[in-house]
């Protein structure tokens, strides 16, 4: 995991001689040090020891952590002591001599790592002679305090699943904003030091932060994000991060950090759109974060601050850049090999767009625009994917329904007629007739096909849930499409519309009963299918939330839907319509309507399981209940129209 760090402690320092030669001889200079980890090609410049006097021993105890491989067995270190702007003007900064007589001016250490610490001294005499004692030891880095924002929605929260008590799994938007805050003191949600907030893009584009980024022109110094560093995708880079689209860094107070958190979890109207969950460092790896996000979480490290590198040595043009970062101290990243967050972000194709100031309005807005465009393109793709993933396996089943519907209905009508005659003639009992009709309905292929479709949708939704769960808003977009296709709406406009022709018993409905205002036979067809499909989807809700209310509402829905279905089939077969039909239809309407009312006054906790299992499914069930209600109204209207017509 790259947790091992080499803790370098600069213990004591003393200038043994004046720096420079007469007449530029200096006895008081500013001193800083350059530490190089050879194997990792890592180099850093420390902060400065101001006004270091000659022949005076300074107790430094400056600690710096350097990322090393966990399996490292030896380290090679190079220490330099540098005099800032030494009087020898032709050189600039001057290198002091701490080479123990080896002629390199640098103190070089090769340490075979073991359980004990390494102590060493680099010193030399002469004009630039100095003394530096150091200590090396291996330690374990601890990741920053991580806060994850997960979304709230009508279908439940998304983005963070609790797989077991206290253990969460990140399942949010693949693209994320990282907000690194160096907090000066602990607060309710933040710890002193480095804190990283992972903000899924879908929430970022909805929260107050987005408005702030789009309105940088009016940002004042009182804004908590004023002058924060803003990094985003480098369009000209050959590489880019798969998951990080924005990094924002800032030094803040505890109060400011809390304000920023508020900004990230609420929208412009003040409504909460996200929850913040603090993840302990120990549980961080259990989140299953994308690799580049995990590697970009800074670590808590020991460091005493850095400064600009010596002007005689800046081979990678990095150290001076780092000194300009928002943080006044060194920031490490968890992955091995790279030292600084700045460098790490550059490697991932991110670049510093600028600070959140008026001067960078255009650049920041352009970056956010690009993110929004990418997001919308992704949503379009997701809708297409979900629809095709669900519709493909059930398309043939839908056709099966249409192909078998007329036979099923004719068979039902024939059976009812047969049993009616049998009962009237005394050949069979009424109970036997009812039993026979019930058996016909329950055992029919049509019902099985509808159940199979419902089951297929249910399974398909469960299968793709891990993928779509971060985007529950997509469910709102795709459910109507899915429902239309499942329940026959697409066939009204699509390739199998010719199948209407086989439903001969219903062909004359528009002219016979519905009048000029409803001239499309598909209304009735859809109504019937909706009624049956809705009832079975309600059944699935009752199956996954087996409590009193869901079962009762399911049963009432079945009763209401069955009566409405029966009445419409009766109308379709040109049966004589009487007041009993009207009463039955009105009661069908009442049953279905009551289901809707009762669904909203039922006691709490009846939908908790379904919300846990699949938030979108509960919503689908509500939709179908409403559709069930619609079919009952339609059935009632048809029956009344038919009666009036006669």
């Amino acid at each position, binding site marked *: 995991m790259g947790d091992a760090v080499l803790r370098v402690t600069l213990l004591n320092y003393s200038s043994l001689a004046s720096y420079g030669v007469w007449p530029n001889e200096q006895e008081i200079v500013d001193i800083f040090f350059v530490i190089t980890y050879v194997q990792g090609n890592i180099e850093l410049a420390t902060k400065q020891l101001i006004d270091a006097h000659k022949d005076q021993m300074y107790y430094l105890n400056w600690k710096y952590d350097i990322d090393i491989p966990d399996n490292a067995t030896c380290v090679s270190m190079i220490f330099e002591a540098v005099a800032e702007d030494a009087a020898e003007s032709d050189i600039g900064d001057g290198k002091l001599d701490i080479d123990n007589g080896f002629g390199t001016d640098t103190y070089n250490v090769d340490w075979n790592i073991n359980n004990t610490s390494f102590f060493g001294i680099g010193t030399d005499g002469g004009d630039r002679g100095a003394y530096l004692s150091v200590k090396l030891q291996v330690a374990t880095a601890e990741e920053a305090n991580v806060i994850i924002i997960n979304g709230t929605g009508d279908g439940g929260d998304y983005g963070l699943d609790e797989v077991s008590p206290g253990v969460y799994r990140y399942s949010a938007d693949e693209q994320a904003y990282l907000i690194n805050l160096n907090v000066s003191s602990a607060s309710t949600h933040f710890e002193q030091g480095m804190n990283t907030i992972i903000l899924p893009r879908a929430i970022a584009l909805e929260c107050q932060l987005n408005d702030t980024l789009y309105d940088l022109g009016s940002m004042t110094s009182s804004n908590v994000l004023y002058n924060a560093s803003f990094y985003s995708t480098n369009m000209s880079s050959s590489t880019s991060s798969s998951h990080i689209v924005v990094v924002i860094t800032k030094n803040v107070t505890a109060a400011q950090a809390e304000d920023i958190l508020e900004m990230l979890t609420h929208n412009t109207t003040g409504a909460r759109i996200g*929850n913040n969950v603090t993840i302990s460092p120990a549980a961080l790896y259990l989140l299953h974060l994308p690799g580049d996000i995990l590697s970009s979480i800074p670590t808590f490290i020991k460091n005493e601050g850095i400064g600009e590198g010596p002007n005689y040595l800046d081979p990678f043009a990095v150290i001076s850049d780092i000194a300009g970062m928002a943080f006044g101290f060194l920031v490490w990243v968890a992955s091995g090999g790279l030292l600084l967050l700045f460098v790490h972000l550059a490697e991932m194709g991110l670049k510093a767009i600028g600070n959140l100031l008026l001067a960078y309005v255009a650049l920041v807005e352009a970056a956010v625009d690009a993110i929004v465009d990418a997001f919308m393109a992704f949503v379009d793709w997701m809708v297409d994917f979900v629809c095709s993933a669900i519709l493909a396996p059930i398309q043939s089943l839908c056709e099966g329904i249409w192909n078998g519907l007329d036979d099923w209905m004719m068979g039902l009508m024939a059976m009812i007629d047969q049993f009616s005659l049998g009962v009237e003639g005394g050949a069979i009992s009424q109970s036997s007739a009812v039993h026979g009709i019930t058996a016909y309905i329950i055992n029919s292929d049509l019902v099985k096909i509808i159940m199979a479709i419902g089951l297929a949708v249910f399974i398909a939704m469960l299968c793709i849930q891990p993928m779509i769960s971060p985007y529950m808003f997509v469910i709102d977009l795709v459910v109507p499409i899915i429902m239309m296709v499942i329940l026959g709406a697409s066939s009204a406009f699509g390739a199998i519309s010719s199948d209407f022709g086989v439903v001969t018993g219903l062909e004359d409905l528009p002219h016979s009963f519905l009048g000029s205002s409803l001239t499309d036979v598909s209304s009735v067809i859809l109504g019937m299918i909706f009624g049956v499909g809705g009832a079975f989807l309600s059944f699935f809700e009752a199956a996954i939330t087996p409590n009193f209310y869901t079962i009762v509402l399911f049963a009432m829905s079945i*009763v209401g839907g069955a009566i409405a279905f029966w009445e419409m089939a009766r109308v379709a077969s040109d049966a004589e319509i009487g007041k009993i039909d009207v009463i039955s239809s009105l009661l069908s309407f009442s*049953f279905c309507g*009551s289901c809707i009312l009762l669904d909203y006054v039922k006691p709490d906790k009846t939908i908790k399981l379904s919300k846990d299992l699949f938030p979108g499914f509960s919503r689908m069930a509500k939709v179908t209940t409403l559709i069930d209600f619609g079919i009952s109204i339609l059935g009632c209207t048809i029956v009344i129209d038919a009666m009036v017509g006669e």
Partner: protein
Amino acid sequence: MDTRQSDRLLFIESPPLWKGFHYTNCYSKRFLAETLFRSLGLISLLASLYIFNEVLYKGASNDYLFPAIMILLGAIICFIGGEYDYVVYGPTARPIKIFSNGILLPPLYIQHLKKDKGLIYKSSIISYKIIRTEYYSIPDSDNIETVWRNGPVRIEMLLTNGKVKRTSIKPPTVIMAIAKILKEDWGIPVVDEGEGTGTVERVVDGKVFDTRRI
């Protein structure tokens, strides 16, 4: 000495559980549901009887047996739903009262007509037991709830006639308030296998944000 009717009121269960329509278990919602169930059930029963009468005695087509049976089935479902809601959910949404001479659980059915509304007299209670549950939730809003772990949610009272009277499920704070009166004011021995009101958690969108042991 008992006066065989309610005496001075000592305690009445307070909101929020049964007060205010926005609470999912509020009494007004329960009343609406029960009324709807019963009304629809009654209408359905009359309608099915009418259809049966038409079919059996007035020569209507036997085709109508199907809707008649379905409507009768619907009536039965409605009655079951209404009475279950009334007996199980109703008392949870209605307040428990304690008088100086007894405890009044929300009366059911014929108890309403009695003078004492089914008051359980202090002298008839031998002992009582506090029933705890691993999980009890009080919803504060759509996404915020207060969850009690191992909290007391019900009291079982052993009466002198050998019967056991149980309160409906109530919030732990209510149960402990009642238990305190029974124990300290009335001196009735208590059986409690737990301690206090258990652990309370503040849960937002399914995640625990605060935990306190009370």
